[in-house]
């Protein structure tokens, strides 16, 4: 315990190596945190208003622009909401190809987070680009970073036309289908990156970080039998099971006066979504090969140590590799399915998927004229915002109990914690409250 009064003011305008802009202000007086504000600093683009009175067919591509990072998650959730509203059941082939497109996102987005954002913290480097080419381990990791991401990128280009704002997926199918021979050619590359990601898990498992929260937190995730992120039922760590259509009524909106975006609680309780809650709630549904190769690390879950989110994401990359491999190996043909134009009726639809950073909710109200009457979108970072702030508070409080940390020590530790959560500020700042009558 340190002596005397300890005062410190920390103001971080833009936290580096995360998606989008977040800010943090901490005021320490007499060894105690007097004030702490974690705020989303992105300026709103008001997509909820922008989609009003626009034709339903145009909405998936428009809302994909909420976030470049996880655009294909928004795209597929929105398509799901429209199909739910219009009573459309996509073909088996469409479902399979969407899974491949989604696994491509999991591989490249989790790899971006784990390698580019989080790994430098383990090696006490400012950037992956500063990794020492003359150090064999760092040299290899730098090359792994780009090789792993590229396989995800190529799978996305083949199945969706592009990694970002994929142009091919649409309501009830795909505008253009991939060639089966091109998908088969990807099989060896998926196997090349697999051991690289296993190695990444080992590195994170040896890192000395522990961000276990004392406060009670409810984990929430959409859990499916094949861990496909796109379907299933919502489960919580306190044993609740919720249908997708009912999810909204469990989320309480919290106005955070200093943040551009709103936070959410789960019926007034702290909640968390993302890879860690997904593994906590559904690890038994991972691909059998993934379970076999990562058995010693899967024992770490369930956990409240949010640093393990990095490992959870890497395990999900292995699952995406293994399930994609199985799907592509079993593909016999890709049929030329004709796209049917949907029949528009006045309706309401809900889409819920597990975006890379957690549960993503889209609701659309469609008018008989085919125009959107209203929409609501709740993103993972909104659901995590309050628990992130709580976690920062506990972390800084612990550091103050142990001694007198320097400003840089606090900033480094807090940034490391925030990065482990992998928040996405672009997503969080798109919307405005919607009152459903």
């Amino acid at each position, binding site marked *: 315990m340190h002596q005397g009064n300890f005062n410190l003011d920390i103001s971080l305008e833009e936290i580096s190596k995360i998606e989008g802009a977040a800010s943090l202000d901490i005021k320490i007086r007499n060894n105690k945190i007097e004030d702490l504000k974690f705020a989303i600093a992105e300026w709103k683009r008001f997509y909820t208003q*922008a989609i009003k009175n626009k034709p339903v067919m145009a909405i998936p591509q428009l809302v994909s622009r909420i976030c470049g990072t996880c655009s294909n998650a928004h795209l597929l959730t929105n398509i799901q909401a429209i199909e739910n509203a219009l009573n459309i059941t996509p073909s088996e082939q469409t479902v399979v190809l969407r899974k491949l497109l989604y696994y491509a996102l999991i591989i490249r987005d989790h790899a*971006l987070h784990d390698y580019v954002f989080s790994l430098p913290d383990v090696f006490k480097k400012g950037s992956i680009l500063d990794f020492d080419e003359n150090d064999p381990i760092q040299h290899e990791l730098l090359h792994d970073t780009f090789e792993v991401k590229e396989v995800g990128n190529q799978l996305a280009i083949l199945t969706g036309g592009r990694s970002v704002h994929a142009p091919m997926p649409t309501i009830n199918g795909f505008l253009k289908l991939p060639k089966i021979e091109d998908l088969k050619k990807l099989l060896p590359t998926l196997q090349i990156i697999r051991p690289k990601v296993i190695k990444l898990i080992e590195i994170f498992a040896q890192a000395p970080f522990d961000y276990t929260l004392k406060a009670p937190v409810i984990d929430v995730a959409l859990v499916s039998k094949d861990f496909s992120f796109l379907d299933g039922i919502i489960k919580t760590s306190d044993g609740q099971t919720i249908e997708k259509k009912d999810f909204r009524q469990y989320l309480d909106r919290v106005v955070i006066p200093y943040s551009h975006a709103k936070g959410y609680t789960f019926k007034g309780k702290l909640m968390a979504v993302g890879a860690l809650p997904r593994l906590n709630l559904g690890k038994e549904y991972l691909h059998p090969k993934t379970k076999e190769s990562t058995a010693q690390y899967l024992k770490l879950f369930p956990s409240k140590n949010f640093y393990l989110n990095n490992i959870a994401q890497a395990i999900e990359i292995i699952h995406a590799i293994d399930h994609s491999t199985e799907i592509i190996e079993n593909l016999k043909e890709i049929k030329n399915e004709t796209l049917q134009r949907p029949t528009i009726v006045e309706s309401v639809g809900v889409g819920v998927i597990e975006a890379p950073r957690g549960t993503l909710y889209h609701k659309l109200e469609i008018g008989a004229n085919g125009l959107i009457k209203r929409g609501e979108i709740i993103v993972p970072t909104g659901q995590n915002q309050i628990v992130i702030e709580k976690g920062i508070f506990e972390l800084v409080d612990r550091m103050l109990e142990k001694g007198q940390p320097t400003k840089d020590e606090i900033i480094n530790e807090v940034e490391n914690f925030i990065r482990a959560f992998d928040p996405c500020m672009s997503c969080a700042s798109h919307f405005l409250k919607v009152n459903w009558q």
Partner: protein
Amino acid sequence: MTKKTRIGWFTFTCCEDSTIMFAELLNIHYKDWLPKIEFVHARVFRKEPKGDIQPMDIAFVEGAIMSDAQEVKLKKIRAQAKILVAVGSCAVTGSPSNARNFFNQENINEIKDILEKFKYKEKVLKLADVVKVDEVVPGCPMNEQIFLAVVNKYLNASR
């Protein structure tokens, strides 16, 4: 040793799709680019240097301008960059981040409190509304081929 080209990558209001496209382009170009480039500013890859905007050979800027503070920062970037490249649709045209520029009164009324509280600019601006732009890479996300052409033009020219 040849002097590295000093690059800045900046993001204003947008979905950061061009940042992601750039991160994916690095997958196959990093071996060629990294020995030639020094990232002076690139919040997505590293901590920002302490102090103000540093001198750069090329500043790549994505996103639209929503606030006075963003406008001031963009002017500082311009002052420190030999070449300023507007990257992606929001930087080049303002859209789709400028959707509210075209809202009807009913929609404006719904968002008025937020606009006033956080002091949003009356209209969302594209980069060229604020500063001189030397090159544009349009597209949502940015067009890869145009981006590569710009990079190759200046990377080779400055060496």
